[in-house]
Every structure is written in C-alpha cells, then in structure tokens.
C-alpha cells in the first residue's frame, strides 16, 4: 500500500499538501517542546537540559517501530523508502560542523526557523549564518568535492552492518533510548541550572 506517493495512491500535489501539514506539525512540536530557546538546546551539551535528546530519540524509536509494524501489517513497502546514502567523510565532517554550530549558536537548522517564527533575533542571525555557510559551500564546492564524495558506502542500515534483524535492532534502540533518558535525567539533577 504505502508509500502513498510512490504507489500513486495520492498525487504529487496532495503530497505537497501533506508535507505542508506535517511541516507545520513538526514546527509545532519543536516550539511546544521549547526548542525555540537556544538555552534549551545548548543545555543538551552542558547536561542541564536533555529534552532535545528525549524528543529526538522518542521520535526515532516511534518511527522505527512504526515503520516495522506498518511493514508487518503490509501497509508499507520498506524497500521503497528512501535511505539517505552514506559518504563517510562528509558525514563525519558535517556532523562535527553541525555539532559545533549547534553549541555556539544554540540552534539546529529546524529550530532556528522555529525561533525566527516567534521573533527571536538570535535565531534570525543564526539563519543568516546558515546561508553564509551554504554560500561558502556551494561557491567552494570544487575544493570540497573530493572529500565530499569520498568513502561512498551506499545506503547501509546499521542493522545490516551489525548482522542483526531490523526488529532486534529496533528493540535494542528502544532499550538504548530508555537508558539515555534515564542518564539524561540523572545529568539534569547533577548539573542543574536555575536561570534559563
């Protein structure tokens, strides 16, 4: 049955409409979780607030269990799901740059738009910085190209590289997430911060 767009159950236009609604939902959840506060996001790094970890890992385990159950019920064809291909070096470099920007700016790209939407000036400046980064990357692309395309691994799944069944991996992910939630709450008690 699913994915709806690939199997032509919905049209491209309906797809955009759904994406619009889901996008608003995403922004709503980010804002409702307090992600438009840069202090909250930076708190993840310093350990006084781990709501970022909780929200994103809850999303990850919900989505992975959801997809596997949908597949089990025959509601979705997992082979048609797009998996972002892995270029090892650009993934590592990108992760480091993104992480550094996250701590320094207090936003990730999604939350910066969220913050800008409720009128936060630091978020708007963050977005400006984001576009400067885009400009540097695109203009300097010939310089980065070699590293950008290096170590292409296809679109591997962690479960495949570990030789685990998808379901077993999802279960381990659930346990890991719950463990991290527990550790996160412990950290919040250990490094409390009043004024943020």
């Amino acid at each position: 049955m699913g994915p709806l767009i690939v199997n032509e159950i919905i049209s491209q236009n309906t797809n955009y409409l759904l994406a619009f609604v889901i996008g608003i939902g995403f922004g709503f959840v980010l804002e409702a979780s307090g992600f438009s506060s840069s202090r909250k996001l930076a708190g993840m790094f310093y350990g006084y607030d781990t709501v970022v970890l909780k929200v994103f890992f809850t999303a990850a385990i919900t989505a992975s269990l959801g997809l596997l159950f949908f597949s089990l019920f025959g509601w979705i064809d997992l082979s048609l799901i797009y998996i972002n291909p892995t270029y090892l070096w650009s993934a590592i470099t990108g992760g480091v740059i993104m992480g550094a920007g996250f701590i320094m700016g207090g936003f990730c790209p999604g939350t910066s738009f969220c913050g800008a939407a409720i009128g936060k000036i630091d978020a708007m400046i963050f977005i400006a910085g984001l576009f400067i980064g885009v400009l540097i990357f695109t203009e300097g692309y010939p310089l980065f190209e070699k590293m950008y395309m290096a170590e292409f691994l296809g679109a591997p799944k962690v479960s495949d590289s570990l030789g685990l069944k998808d379901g077993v991996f999802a279960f381990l992910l659930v346990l890991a997430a719950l463990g991290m939630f527990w550790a996160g709450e412990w950290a919040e008690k250990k490094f409390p911060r009043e004024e943020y």
Partner: protein
Amino acid sequence: MKSRVILAAFIIPLGLIIAAVPAYKTLSTSVSPEEILNEVRSGIQIITTDEVAEMIIAKDPSLLLIDIRSPEEFEKFNLPGALNIPIDNILSDEWIDIFDQNIKMNVLYGNGTTKSNEAWMILRQLGFENNYVLQGGLNYWAETIMNPKPPSNINPDDEIAKYDFRKGAGQALGGGSISVNQGNESTTKKAVIKRKKKKKRVAGGC
C-alpha cells in the same frame, strides 16, 4: 519520571514483539495476489532453455542458476555453475541475500517446473524480484538442449537455426554428461552460436 515509566511500559513490549517477528516479514512487503496471478498467467517468470543455454555459454555473469532439488539429485547432475538450494531451505536466512537482490538473474530449476514454480511463487510473495523459472525444468533441458530432435525439412528456417543452436549448445555444455567441457572445443563452438539480444524478462514461447 512517571511519563518515562509509561513510555517504557508501552514501548518495550512493542520492541519485543517486533524483535520476535521473523526477519522476512518486515522486509519489503509482499506483492498483491492479483499481481502475482497476472504474472503467472502471462508466464513472465518463465525463461526458455535456449536463453539459459546461451547465457551459460556466454558465461554471462548476471546469471545465477539455482537447483532447488535435493543435494543427492544435485550431486548426480546439475547445470554448470548452479547453486544447490533445496526448496525446503529457501526461506532460511542464509539464502535471503541471494533471492532478495536486484543485480543477478536467478533461474530456479528442478526436474520439472512444479517445484520451481512453487519456490518462485513463495519468493514473489515476499516481494523479491529477479527470480525466474527454467522452462520445463531439467527434463525439458535434456530434451531440447542435450538431445535436440532435428526438425523435418518442411520446417521454416528459424526452426532449423534453433536446432543448430541447440545442437551446438548441447555439445558445448557436455551433451548430457555431468562435467562441462570448458576446453578448446567449447570456445570454438561459441563462435557458431549467434548471440541474440539479451532480454531481462522472457515470456514462455510455444
């Protein structure tokens, strides 16, 4: 605190269930029965003995012959380069990567076609592609490739050409013996055989 307990109570059992489900059930979903019926009726899974013979002789790297008979039968006779996966084992995790891929062209064969069609249908229901069934199985292989009957003179030219091909192929593939002649003889024979345009899917001819 409490919300985490609720979350754990809800999500750990779900995780356990999905971990206990057999791997193939959460793979790409099955093809609908209507689609399979259509495919079976149009015979899209059948690949002719001539086509397979050509691919073997041309050492086509995309061909993977899969013998679904028992190991004993496989020992007695098999097609060159064939892999023995008895039909009882087709669902084991060991072979799933062979059946579920989109690079090679798997051709299943047994003595006839009943078992290979059964195996094909199971694999198809799992959503696997690139699996085919050898037309008529080994019996038909022996009849058409190993011991082709000469057509009578009134047959059209392409019948005679087909016979010539089969005769050449039969000799190149060892004419019914177990071992395959990989020596000079087969390379000289190769020159005789005209390579038809390779098709990915071949419907059964009559």
